[in-house]
């Protein structure tokens, strides 16, 4: 995709340079049409595809963990203790490893994707302004909806004896999944934990 966009951008750049060096070319109808394509259509297309490429990249685990503030969270994904929720999901391939952060930290709602991007922009702002809180916290309590997006219809969730009589409460958020399942990241104790890396 990057090379296609680059090709389109270079065609646009060459045409724009030609038109800028010889503006008289835009006097005729053909010249006007070429100028419109080179200076409006192609740049808009390159920008739109570029936005898509960058937004897709921003979903990657590597992207999230590239900020040093997130390093302990990245380490917590490798904790060998299976009770650690994030590590269990990551090491057991229950989430795609290349989009691990995004899979659990986006909201599965109509505008969840947009909200995640806006939150990401806010994180970038905080990162660059250096106003980083000592303890990083979620903006709002973790919503069961994000867990139930995958687990909600799973047999091992619905038929689990510990969930008996609580399915409705968990669906409504009255009972949090994290009341029983955890720790999730617990970055303060991650250094004391055994770390598992793929051989």
């Amino acid at each position: 995709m990057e090379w296609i966009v680059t090709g389109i951008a270079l065609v646009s750049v060459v045409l724009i340079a030609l038109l800028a060096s010889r503006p008289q070319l835009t006097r005729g109808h053909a010249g006007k049409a070429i100028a419109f394509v080179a200076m409006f259509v192609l740049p808009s297309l390159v920008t739109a595809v570029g936005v898509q490429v960058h937004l897709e990249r921003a979903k990657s685990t590597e992207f999230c963990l590239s900020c040093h503030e997130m390093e302990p969270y990245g380490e917590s994904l490798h904790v060998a203790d299976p009770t650690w929720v994030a590590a269990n999901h990551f090491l057991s391939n229950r989430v795609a490893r290349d989009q691990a952060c995004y899979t659990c930290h986006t909201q599965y709602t109509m505008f969840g994707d947009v909200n995640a991007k806006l939150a990401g922009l806010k994180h970038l702002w905080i990162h660059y302004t250096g106003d980083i809180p000592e303890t990083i916290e979620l903006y709002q309590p973790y919503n069961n909806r994000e867990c139930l997006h995958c687990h909600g219809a799973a047999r091992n969730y619905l038929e689990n004896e510990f969930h008996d009589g609580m399915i409705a409460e968990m669906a409504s958020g009255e009972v949090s999944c994290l009341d029983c399942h955890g720790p999730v990241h617990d970055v303060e104790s991650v250094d004391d934990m055994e770390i598992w890396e793929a051989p």
Partner: protein
Amino acid sequence: MNTRGFRLAAGLLIVGLLVEVATLFFGGPESFMAFAGLGALLVAVGIVLYLLAVLRAGSAGESSGG
């Protein structure tokens, strides 16, 4: 067409497009910031200036009778 406005738009578009393309080959938040904060911004301003130059050329053509 206003040649100065047209050339300014062209310059901004060229620089903006080159910045956008360059960021596509680097990952990470910095690359995203350069794309959105510089490349896309220059392209957007370039497009607006180009459209203004076209509109001005159109209205100048009408007022001069052709």
